[in-house]
């Protein structure tokens, strides 16, 4: 289904406070005490990608970089590793945002999957250079799960911007 076939809604402008709130929620999810669960989706990366695609003027590389630093400090990871990967992710998402929005949610998810995988590859490369161990292929499962969550997450994150459907005969659109 292409862009012209599906009905498009006019959305309300996104609130900066709401964007910050969703990022904090995603950070909370990532900092939950997961024991040895492999293949966890990186919700922060997903939410960052979402806002970079939908609001590229309000969300950008700088914010992604800072959120990455918080992730690093919270996890005791190499300082700058997430910042590096998220900056690239944000750059790719911002430069692709016009293209991605033309597709249906599941095709958007395919784009997001590539972006997330690329950012994980970057992080893996950085850690292997810095002398880490290869965590196994299950490490990449998180990107697939996160991409599968994209349609749901984008529906939920767009909810506050939707307005109720009211039939008004006099309104032009």
């Amino acid at each position, binding site marked *: 289904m292409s862009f012209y076939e599906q009905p498009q809604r006019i959305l309300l402008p996104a609130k900066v406070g709401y964007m910050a709130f969703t990022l*904090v929620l995603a*950070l*909370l*999810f*990532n*900092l*939950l*005490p*997961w*024991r*040895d669960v*492999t293949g*966890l989706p990186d919700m922060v990366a997903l939410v960052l990608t979402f806002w970079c695609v939908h609001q590229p*003027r309000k969300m*950008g*590389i*700088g914010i992604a*970089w800072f959120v*990455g*630093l*918080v992730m*690093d*400090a*919270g*996890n*005791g*990871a*190499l*300082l*700058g*590793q997430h*910042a*590096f990967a998220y*900056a*690239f992710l944000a*750059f790719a998402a*911002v*430069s692709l945002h016009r293209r991605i929005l033309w597709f249906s949610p599941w095709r958007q998810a395919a784009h997001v999957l590539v972006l997330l995988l690329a950012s994980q590859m970057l992080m893996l490369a*950085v*850690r292997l250079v*810095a*002398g*880490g*161990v290869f*965590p*196994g292929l299950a*490490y990449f499962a998180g990107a697939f799960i996160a991409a599968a969550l994209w349609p749901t997450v984008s529906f939920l994150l767009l909810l506050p911007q939707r307005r109720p459907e009211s039939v008004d005969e006099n309104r032009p659109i």
Partner: protein
Amino acid sequence: MDYQPPPFFSRGPAPLVRLGFFVCLAVLLMVLDARFRYAEHLRQVIALLAYPLQRVSLAPGDLFGAAAGFFTTQVSLKQENEQLKAKQLQAANELLTVRALRSENAQLRRLLEARERLPRESTLAEILYQGRDPFSRKVIIDKGRQQGIQPGQAVIDDLGVIGQVTRVYPLLSEVTLITDKEQRTPVQVVRNGLRAIIYGGDRGALELSYMATNADVLADDVLVTSGIDGTYPPGLPVAKVSRIEQDAAYSFAKITCVPTAGTEQNRQVLVLSREMNLPAPPVEAESVAGKPPKPKRSRTRE
């Protein structure tokens, strides 16, 4: 002169420029952190920002734990109580022997005019969570600088050594487990007193590196801390040798060990304070080597 009209919409520097700037900044931070460890202050500040988030994210788990504890059946409590009583009886017996041995040991040491070992202070801490970093094995405990934790302290559980405090934040600290690839622990084979250094290996195992192929190490040998570095008290169980591969093509044997302590299971751990009455390192060695020897953790580039 090439004249450009002012842009209609000012959007700051181009995305590629921004990306270059932030990537340079991130790479700089990573190099500072990994090679020189200069970024500790920045990490402390950001960690303080992340602390409330961490606390909030721990709340659901705690709530679940409390609820589960409330619904523990009386039967299981009774069973556990009986088990603990039996265990305590056993322990009391051993404690009596230990007391006798300790007094005997003290007397012998005095006879030998050896330096008496001071009992170490210990702090009980709880593991809050495992770092979400699949590349290293670290846990975060709930005691920090406020509670007197210092970097370098040994962390043990009821079975043996689990790791060492590597970073201290105001209210939390980070413990690198002995199974981390970058962590080295000085050990000794109980059977013959052979000293060695144990490294973290793959999948929660340990590796006894740089042992000659003809070294006297057998399967099921117990390895304990040697206590040479002053970080770990001597005689704490560390690992058990599980497999030895001797290949004449290599000068070193590949010795795989299994940690004794529950490095991945336990919640309560004990942080031991460092022994302070160490003699000063010899001066000659320092001037020859150019820098003080670092026995406990040396960073090597593989």
